[in-house]
């Protein structure tokens, strides 16, 4: 360590060491012995993704910069960029509000603008580092089949990370000034989630309204859109051209992105400390009066637990935004249902898996909150109630929320197509129960505020939950057409759930 203490390089070293250890702990769940297995798993996944990339983008390796290609690449870039902005906003909000080491830094005589400049750059690097491994297999395949010109795509990702961070910092600071520090934390996270989902949902809704399908590709490949797109010489296409290997465009995009990031650092970093102090001085909570009579309602231990779960969920807008944000993805199927109400069965077939998948994912999140995210575990455990009653009450709380959300959609579907509604209803129940069971088997003790890091506690549970939801969604989709054909995907989904049970530390 040769850097001058307190210098930007010294802070960068400190930050990178923390980031590396945090990443390592996340990947190995705190057990260094797992590192070799993690490295092997990542390598296998990386190689597998190259095959996937060959299958999906291989045929575009020889693409030329015509309008259709530029529209397709620009859309992909825009989608990724929206996701990056969303992530960067999350990180920036954390930088304001996370008190882990801010008090120490702010209390020290070190130049605060240096540490915050380093932190903004770290966010930009993190965005690029998160995107690079995901994009690398696709870019590698394009390089292998289409030549070195595709190397420009790597440069584009770095530029996207820088620009996304600059915009996220700007947006967060604007929110801070506009609505104050108290509301910014929540609103910024909601905005981040909406930005992340908006592009996909917007394309799907447009596709439904224009073509009656959930496929967003139909919009991007439509002659109307291509005809209305800007001329080939427009600056709008620079990012796409950069990906295609246009060196001038790449240099332009990189220069513009770094200039944006530099502007964000110069403008915001010196005041970041001030904002952080304001944020810390403003509690995230206010005195909230509940309006209710003093008389207690008659209740059993199970209903007390259910009511508690629902009250806690309802009163925590951040958690609502995190869990029910998945409901945003139900907007396209709801629009499809509304639009296709009189059109026949074809569209309903598309709805079945979407609803089942959403139910599984939502149930997984809610189950984690109810089962693992218990803020007073000792209180509940010391109550004179058998543990199975507690677990049952929490499962009922989760499934109750699922029922309230999905029952109206299934009811509307039942009017249009009773068969599809029946299959959807069964699929929703099975997927929700499976996700809840997986969360129960892999339960761990955590604070509700750690909801966003719940995947870290058990990656196996996360994957099992995802594959179970996908499996039940596929089963329901096939069952809607033919019950007999659904046996095969149903067996696979059941195998996923059984496998999760066998691998779980608690086989309840």
């Amino acid at each position: 360590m040769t850097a001058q203490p307190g210098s930007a390089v010294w802070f960068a070293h400190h930050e990178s060491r923390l980031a590396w250890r945090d990443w390592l702990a996340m990947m190995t769940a705190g057990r260094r012995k797992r590192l070799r297995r993690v490295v092997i798993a990542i390598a296998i996944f990386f190689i597998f993704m190259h095959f996937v990339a060959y299958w999906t983008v291989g045929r575009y390796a020889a693409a030329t910069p015509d309008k259709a290609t530029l529209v397709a690449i620009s859309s992909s870039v825009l989608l990724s960029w929206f996701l990056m902005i969303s992530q960067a906003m999350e990180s920036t909000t954390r930088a304001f509000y996370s008190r882990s080491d801010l008090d120490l830094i702010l209390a020290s005589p070190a130049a605060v603008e240096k540490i915050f400049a380093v932190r903004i750059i770290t966010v930009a690097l993190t965005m690029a580092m998160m995107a690079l491994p995901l994009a690398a297999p696709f870019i590698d395949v394009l390089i292998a089949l289409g030549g070195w010109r595709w190397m420009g795509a790597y440069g584009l990702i770095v530029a996207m990370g820088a620009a996304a961070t600059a915009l996220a910092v700007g947006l967060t600071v604007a929110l801070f000034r506009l609505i104050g520090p108290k509301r910014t934390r929540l609103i910024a996270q909601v905005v981040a989630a909406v930005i992340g989902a908006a592009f996909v949902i917007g394309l799907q809704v447009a596709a439904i309204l224009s073509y009656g399908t959930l496929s967003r590709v139909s919009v991007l490949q439509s002659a109307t859109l291509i005809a209305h797109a800007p001329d080939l010489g427009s600056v709008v296409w620079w990012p796409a051209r950069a990906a295609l290997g246009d060196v001038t465009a790449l240099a332009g995009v990189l220069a513009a992105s770094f200039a944006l990031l530099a502007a964000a650092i110069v403008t915001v970093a010196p005041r970041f400390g001030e904002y952080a102090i304001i944020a810390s001085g403003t509690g995230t909570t206010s005195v909230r009066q509940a309006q209710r009579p003093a008389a207690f309602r008659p209740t059993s231990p199970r209903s007390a637990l259910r009511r508690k779960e629902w009250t806690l969920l309802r009163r925590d807008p951040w958690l609502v935004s995190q869990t029910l944000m998945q409901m945003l993805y139900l907007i396209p199927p709801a629009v499809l249902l509304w639009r296709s109400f009189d059109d026949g069965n074809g569209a309903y077939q598309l709805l079945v898996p979407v609803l089942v998948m959403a139910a599984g994912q939502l149930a997984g999140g809610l189950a984690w909150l109810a089962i693992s995210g218990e803020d007073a575990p000792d209180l509940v455990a010391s109550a004179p109630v058998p543990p199975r009653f507690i677990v049952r009450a929490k499962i009922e709380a989760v499934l109750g929320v699922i029922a309230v959300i999905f029952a109206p959609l299934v009811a509307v579907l039942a009017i249009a197509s009773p068969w599809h509604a029946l299959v959807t209803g069964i699929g929703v129940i099975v997927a929700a129960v499976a996700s809840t069971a997986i969360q129960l088997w892999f339960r761990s003790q955590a604070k509700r505020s750690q909801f966003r890091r719940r995947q870290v506690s058990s990656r196996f549970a996360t994957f099992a939950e995802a594959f179970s939801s996908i499996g039940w969604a596929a089963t329901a989709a096939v069952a809607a057409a033919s019950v007999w054909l659904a046996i095969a995907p149903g067996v696979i989904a059941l195998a996923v759930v059984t496998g999760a049970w066998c691998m779980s530390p608690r086989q309840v």
Partner: protein
Amino acid sequence: MQHFAPTVPFALEVCGLVKRFDRPAVDGLDLRVRSGEFYALLGPNGAGKTTTLRMISGLLRPDAGTIRVVGIDALADPVAAKQVTAWISDEPMIYDKLTPLEYLEFVAGLWGIAPALAGPRAQELLDWLDLVPHANERCEGFSKGMRQKVALAGALIHDPRLIILDEPLTGLDAGSARQVKSVLRDRVRAGGTIIMTTHILEVAERMADRIGVIAHGKLIAEGTLEELRLQAGKNGDRTIGAGEGASLEDTFLALVAEQAAAA
């Protein structure tokens, strides 16, 4: 507040209690606390105090031994034992998004207390702990002291026969600490039994009827302060100042030093 007529001589009987993690945390512990007694359990860090209390509260399963709470076999019938027990830790077990009144309603529901009893009892407790002005505010903005008072109210709503407290005064200001101590004293006067761990030896000295000293998972000394002084004076390290007239701090340090030397 209900007055308890002792139905059994001992509110708590622990025999041969063992719990091992990487090493023995509790190692064949025997402990008996009389009904209506205030019992302080002292010991250095890592002595096994919290592990012991968690096993008594039903939060941890012992590897061996027996636990009887008010005559109930707590391992054979944990639900019945929990019905008459309350557990309070140094970290208040409350929900930020509930108000104190809602919290008490939830706890009363968990313990199956009839609303007709629980409602007035909650009001009484809130009044007793000066929480009435905050009864309908969410707990998220409360100080540590207020949170601990809410937790204490929750622990008392079902009128427990045995109250188990693990460092309940940690982090409390003088006013809140005095209020908690006053509530606990009243509880003992009403015939309830309290077993409490604390590192604040003055609290144990002033409040406890009997004091137990635990080290390396074993009870190394037990009795009134006078009895402990005698024991430390007989066997202990006199350089620390144990013996007649010694403070509890000196006595405690002498007993622990003696145990460390023997080990």
